[in-house]
């Protein structure tokens, strides 16, 4: 964590905080809590918050307009009412949207997948914002609850907790504004340790499952108020550079400092001493080091410090991975499936470990590498079922393909012919009745090409994987085209 090593010189625009204020905040001498303002904090409602916020803001060096929003203190019933009526409106809107989806689903049975997922995303976003607002509204009541508690000096941990709980407070004056202030962090940081955030966590698991993956390198566990940490922003070139450690003698680059030290041995005996080879120790500094957080150099990115909802990255490695994953081409392709692409080589390696084997799929399109994970998922979600994997169903559909089409199996195949292998009961029945007449080309009927028409067997992510409700509906409405398209037609001719 040596800043000289990482933040090579001037590239980083640090917003250097007021050192004294910070240490004052962080050193946590017990007597600090004896400070009258802090004792006040636990007994009265408003002033401590004011104080708290002020401390923060002064460290932060944030604009004055922010401060003004923070300064609204009193629990305001009319604001609450506003808030609630806004929520009511919002929920009504949502209801309309769902109604619309239901109506639309009836009409467009043909291709429910894209439409529905799109709508689902919309819904999710709206729901999330409603939840955030609800929590902030509820959170505004918290201090009054706290005030009834006996006035004991809060421990450091408690302080942190309160900080989390209290943070949305400034949003009192309106739920919409809240989105723009720090309160908006609430839905994205599921591990907050206060009561209100706990319910957020649960909701998040359900609603924003896909988001979580992207946030995995985020500082989920912490809720650092802005300004309590130092922000470092490496340049793009630094991030993409293959090596970070360079030999001062020959200029060769290395990924790891240890490798560099090994290399240095070749440059002379002075580098072979145990001291030179030892891992450079961080000097135990008497003053506590500032917490460092990182910003992504890509402007407009949520991880960029200029972003309104900025979320810092924890380590330099996080920055590198984030930058590559989000803002670079995915140049590494999986050699097995030839479909999955990655920009971080470690991701590719992780994927390759699981690629191809043990694909456990849910009818919703989600894939799992392990069966128990799939079953856990199915247990959680209503109506989800495991999908029968492509290989298996193909194998079952075309047994005669596998057993080399000699005469005997041709005959055997003819017994399966009555239903084309598209799992549609209805279109299948059209081409039935003839048990013997269609032995000529079993391969044509069983060829995997047919699955393209069916849709869903080919790719995983599409919801109606094999037989979900929607896919059944799909078959009912548009299935006749199918049997007219391919050889199954011949069979129905035979019938007539």
């Amino acid at each position: 964590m040596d800043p000289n090593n990482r933040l090579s010189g001037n590239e980083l625009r640090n917003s250097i905080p007021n050192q004294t204020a910070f240490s004052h905040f962080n050193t946590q001498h017990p007597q600090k809590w004896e400070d009258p303002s802090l004792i006040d904090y636990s007994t009265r409602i408003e002033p401590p918050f004011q104080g708290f916020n002020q401390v923060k803001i002064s460290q932060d060096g944030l604009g004055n307009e922010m401060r003004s929003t923070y300064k609204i203190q009193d629990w305001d019933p009319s604001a609450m009412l506003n808030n609630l009526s806004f929520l009511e409106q919002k929920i009504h809107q949502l209801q309309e949207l769902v109604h619309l989806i239901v109506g639309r689903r009836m009409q467009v049975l043909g291709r429910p997948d894209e439409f529905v997922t799109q709508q689902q995303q919309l819904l999710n976003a709206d729901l999330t914002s409603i939840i955030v607002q609800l929590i902030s509204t509820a959170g505004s009541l918290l201090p009054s609850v706290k005030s009834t508690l006996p006035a004991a000096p809060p421990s450091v941990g408690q302080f942190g907790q309160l900080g989390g709980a209290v943070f949305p407070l400034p949003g009192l004056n309106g739920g919409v504004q809240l989105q723009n202030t720090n309160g908006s962090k609430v839905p994205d940081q599921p591990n907050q340790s206060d009561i209100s955030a706990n319910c957020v966590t649960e909701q998040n698991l359900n609603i924003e499952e896909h988001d979580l993956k992207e946030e995995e390198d985020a500082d989920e566990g912490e809720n650092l108020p802005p300004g309590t940490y130092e922000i470092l922003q490496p340049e793009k070139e630094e991030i993409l550079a293959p090596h970070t450690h360079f030999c001062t003698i020959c200029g060769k680059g290395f990924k790891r400092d240890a490798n560099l030290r090994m290399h240095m041995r070749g440059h002379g005996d002075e580098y072979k001493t145990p001291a030179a080879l030892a891992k450079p120790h961080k000097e135990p500094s008497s003053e506590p080091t500032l917490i460092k957080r990182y910003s992504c150099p890509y402007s407009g990115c949520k991880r960029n410090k200029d972003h309104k909802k900025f979320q810092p990255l924890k380590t330099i490695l996080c920055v590198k991975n984030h930058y590559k994953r989000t803002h670079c081409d995915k140049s590494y392709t999986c050699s097995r499936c030839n479909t999955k692409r990655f920009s971080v080589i470690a991701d590719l390696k992780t994927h390759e470990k699981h690629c191809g084997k043990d694909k456990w799929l849910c009818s919703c399109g989600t894939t799992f590498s392990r069966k128990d994970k799939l079953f856990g998922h199915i247990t959680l979600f209503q109506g989800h079922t495991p999908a029968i994997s492509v290989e298996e169903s193909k194998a079952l559909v075309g047994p005669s393909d596998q057993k080399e089409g000699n005469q005997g199996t041709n005959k055997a195949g003819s017994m399966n012919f009555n239903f084309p292998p598209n799992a549609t009961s209805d279109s299948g029945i059209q081409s039935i009745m003839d048990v013997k007449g269609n032995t000529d080309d079993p391969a044509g009927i069983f060829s995997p090409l047919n699955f393209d028409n069916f849709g869903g067997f080919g790719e995983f992510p599409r919801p109606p994987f094999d037989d979900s409700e929607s896919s059944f509906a799909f078959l009912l409405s548009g299935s006749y085209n199918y049997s007219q398209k391919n050889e199954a037609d011949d069979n129905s001719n035979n019938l007539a």
Partner: protein
Amino acid sequence: MSSGSTKNILSFTEDLLIRVYEKLSSGSDRKSWRLVCREFLRVDLVTQNHLRVLRVEFLPGLLRKYTRLQSLDFSVCPRIDDGTVSMLLPRHGSGSESDSLSWGSWARGLKCLVLSRATGLGFFGLEALVHVCPLLEIVDVSYCCGFGDREAAALSHAAGLRVLKMDKCLNLSDVGLAKIAVRCGRLECLSLKWCMEITDLGIGLLCKKRVDLKSLDISYLKVRNESLHSIASMKKLEVLAMVGCPVVDDFGLQFLENGCPMLQGMDVSRCECVSSSGLISVIKGHSGLRELNASYSFPELCTTFLHCLKGLKHLELIRIDGSRISETSFSVISAHCKSLLEIGLSKCVGVNNMGIMQLVSGCVNLRILNLTCCHSITDAAISAIADSCRNLICLKLESCDMITEKSLYQLSSFCLLLEEIDLTDCHGVNDKGLKYLSSCSGLQCLKLGLCMNISDKGLFNIGSNCPKIHELDLYRCTGIGDESLAAISKGCKNLMKLNLSYCSGITDRGLEYVGHMHELSDLEMRGLEKVTGAGLAAVAAGCKRLSDLDLKHCDKVDDSSFWALACHAKNIRQINLSYCAISDMALCMVMANLTHLQDAKLVHLNNVSVEGFELALRACFVQIKKVKLFAPLSYLLSSEILENLHAKGCKIRWD
């Protein structure tokens, strides 16, 4: 029939006729009813709601006529496959509309579908069937060994399913089970016996999704204790069968102590790792237990277990076959389990007269008592049973060779409700005993195998006094001759199962009497040395309902009778021709003409050439399900025919 009486019966309104019709119980009575007149036939058509189909060729017609069908049974029909199913289904599109209207109607009201052993049926046929029957509640696909996840997925579309039997669907895995668990929201009974691929994950999911399940059978699955942990969470489970679960042990059963509050029936027989301590924990938690089967699970009935039994006031059935039991155990059971109706003590060590006497002194309501291989009991025990248990219906005394005609006298004097008695290998049974026994006029099932001391005289009494007998086992009763069969065929008109194997005294004349048993469906006549073709021909011509015939070692039966068999016995489903002197031609005739043959045992046919086998198999491959052949034939028969058989779902056993 005079014209006056015709008027009378036709003047009945339809609902009255239906009421009369509903009183008819047996299939043959209903058949006679149908043949009376058009009106009667119409009543039959609108009333009959269950159909068990043997001949698929009549199915379309039947389905069109029987419009109120609720239950359809294909279990005896070998030819049900995708093609047949597709023929029966309503067709969309180009087909004539009026036709399709009448077609689909049968499926709309169907609630019960039995597809047991329908190995010819594939995924598409099953799926189509499920889709056209919207009200389906009960489905049986047991012993469809090829069925797996896709079939389960097809079945899961029947959202109203309540009862599902999937015994021995060998390819069924957790994935298929999950489909059913998620989609069939009303499922109450599920049987997964021998679905070996199922693991704890599947059972766990089932228990979470289908908390309302009332009955679950996980017999022979290799599930672990985790499964029982999940099962314990089911609040409404009443019956749990877990026969032969090799991995489950006492820790697993301990989960059940505080789970499944409604549990009434439990079967833990043949679980190797279960001991009485596990069972004790189950019993402790469920004082309302009614049925407990713990056969072959633990070697000895320990005292703590007996102590726990005291709590089971409502216990109706207990089976502890194969364990060691002491006299005191009997006194505990008899003192506390007063409502016991059935007790199974088959092959228990330590069962003696004193024990039985103590048992029956308390359990006076016993209906079914199984004392198979309890060698040390004598007439005294049987007297006590007869004296106390007046309601006894079924008594199994196989290999209790100390009992004599005195026991039978006691039984016939007091147990007048006796319906089934197994006296196999009881050497003490003689003609006198049978005479006593014949006063139990309600007797339906009588097993006298290996009773060497009985003769025509004894069986004459049975034949003349027990008209309700439908199963008679005379295996190796060497003392009997043709006269017995004469008496039985005269008196026991309801006889359906008859075993005459190795009754060396029987000749062609005896088989002619057998030919008069019109209800006979199962006939085992192995090793009848004196019987020739004429006898078999008489049987073939007379017993129209014959479905299962065993002719092993009937050396003198010649081709002419096989021709007769091929001509007349159209309903035969199983046949054993091993060691018969059948020729190529006759075998082909038999195999080709018996259009409902499903199971044939054809080993050691010395007069049949490889070509003969080839032709015979070719002739029957459409309907055959199981065939037993001489092992070297596997190399001699063409691969084509073997593949064809395999593709049809036929199993070949090489001997």
